[in-house]
């Protein structure tokens, strides 16, 4: 499904060796049985997702356009040389990176705080936990509509609250080129908090209590215990969820499409919105696919650097 509602299952790449049974499965089946059972799932996945994906990557090297029976020719790296000079695209790319990193970092900090609180024995914890989960179930379109109401210049409660405090209460949050992106980022944080919070909470609950006790006996205060015990233990979970958040945020579409549609003046034009317009508004399929390819390469580079950095500091 879309990136924003994609499941966090991938945070759980179980080491395969753990569950491997002896060959052949329980009641003496064979590898052929396994393939037979998997086939009904495999065929549609290959036809309708692996094949289109390969096709999509290839399209990025063609001049494909929308329309019936137009010939499609490979044009090598023409799309990419053209993209190189497309400042609008690179602007959008910069906005996308700023958006993805800001949302991921803020989301992580906010979720870590909430997860730490939820891990304490506080009253009303159940309510906070339920509230934290709700955005997960909401369609991104509706989250966007809800925040359009919140940020509405005249009716919205945020401006009303500011007026009540004697501040300028006529800010056009989504219509002002210099505030639209920060406003949209806040909505992004709100929308993505559930997965991050729940994952971190689960991680916190698996930190052995004995470690804390030992550290406390050694005289470590709460802050030092957090820094030297909790955080290192939580590290694999943190790396997994921030990696996924970064990918999801960079590829997100529906939320911003409904909030601002990329406006005002293209200041919230995420790369996905840009490529969507290129493909389905202007019909430049090949060019849009080339943009998709550039996005994959860039996100792959960032992931590589991030994960390698994490590996190194862990081994150090």
């Amino acid at each position: 499904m879309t990136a924003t509602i994609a499941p966090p299952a991938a945070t759980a790449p179980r080491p395969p060796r753990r569950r491997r049974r002896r060959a052949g499965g329980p009641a003496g089946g064979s590898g052929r049985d396994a393939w037979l059972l998997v086939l009904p799932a495999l065929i549609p996945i290959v036809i309708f997702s692996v094949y289109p994906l390969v096709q999509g990557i290839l399209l990025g090297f063609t001049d494909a356009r929308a329309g019936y029976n137009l010939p499609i020719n490979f044009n090598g790296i023409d799309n990419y040389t053209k993209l190189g000079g497309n400042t609008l695209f690179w602007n959008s790319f910069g906005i996308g990176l700023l958006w993805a990193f800001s949302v991921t970092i803020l989301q992580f900090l906010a979720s870590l705080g909430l997860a730490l609180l939820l891990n304490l024995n506080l009253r009303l914890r159940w309510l906070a936990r339920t509230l934290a989960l709700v955005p997960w179930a909401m369609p991104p379109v509706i989250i966007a509509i809800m925040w359009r109401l919140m940020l509405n210049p005249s009716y919205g409660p945020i401006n009303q609250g500011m007026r009540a405090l004697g501040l300028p209460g006529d800010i056009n949050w989504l219509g002002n080129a210099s505030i639209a992106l920060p406003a949209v980022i806040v909505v992004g944080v709100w929308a993505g908090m559930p997965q991050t919070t729940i994952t971190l909470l689960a991680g916190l609950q698996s930190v052995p209590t004995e470690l804390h006790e030992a550290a406390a006996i050694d005289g470590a205060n709460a802050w030092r215990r957090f820094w030297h015990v909790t955080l290192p233990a939580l590290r694999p979970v943190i790396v997994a969820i921030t990696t996924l958040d970064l990918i999801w945020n960079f590829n997100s579409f529906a939320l911003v499409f409904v909030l601002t549609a990329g406006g005002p003046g293209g200041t919230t034009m995420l790369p996905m919105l840009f490529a969507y317009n290129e493909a389905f508004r202007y019909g430049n399929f090949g060019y849009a696919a080339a943009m998709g390819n550039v996005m994959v390469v860039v996100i792959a580079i960032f992931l590589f650097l991030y994960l390698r950095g994490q590996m190194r500091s862990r081994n150090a």
Partner: protein
Amino acid sequence: MTTLASGTVKDTGPVTGASVKRARMISRPLQYLALVLYMIFLGFPLLFLLTTAFKTSRELQSPNPGFLPTSFDLQNFVQAIEKANLFTAAGNSLIVAVCTTVLVTLIALPAAYALARFRTKLRGIATGWILLSQVFPFILIIIPLFLVLKNIGLINNLAGLVLVYTVWSLPFALWMLQGYIVGIPVELEEAGAMDGASRFRTLRTIVLPLLAPGLVATSLFTFINSWNEFFFALVLIQDPSLQTLPLALARFVGAEGQVQLGQLAAASLLATIPSLVFFLLIQKRLTSGLLSGAVKG
């Protein structure tokens, strides 16, 4: 991770010494303050959506509207349903989500069993594909998919949408289901086989009942994702009579004026209810199922 929801009551610190107690006297109020702030940030927009849905157009246009509606006015709901064609859209969404869920469950169940119980390379491939499918932006997939579906006449067709949703829900449904199957001790099946029950019988009478809660969670989650999906629907459905709820709502936003805010809120509220109810039903199982690997692995 089954303790996630009800929670093993675990405090971060040990309970030794007076200094710790004193520190807690100071930190507890701060912790509650932080928790309340979080609840406002997370809950206020929801509450505001709820109250807006019940406000009359006069209230919405007043320069200083109160937070609570003055009356329990259902006018917005009635008008929203008429104007945005919500019934048709909800019907389309329901058809697509139910068909997707049924298809995904039927296809994923045997495959998940194979992934969980047989020692093959499939497991690695499946994991790889699930991770890979997260990285690629949907723009790369949707263009060729659009061309393929156009060739077989499934553009502007709910069946085409069901097909796409099924394929894109499958990896995740597989992953969840195989996790639940792995959690069922294989010894139970071996015992069944030893007692002379056929493979099919063992599966039906021993595995399936134990798997039922996980199966329900997976199905409902698939339903929610299809119900909420926007991007594929935006590209693949152009006919207004075929649009799903998220599409209908997104189009409704364009026509927004001050007067329509109430209707917009009412429509949004109605469209959220099914996924919200399902989500709250399965959330404990969902979070425990998803995370067991990440945490214990």
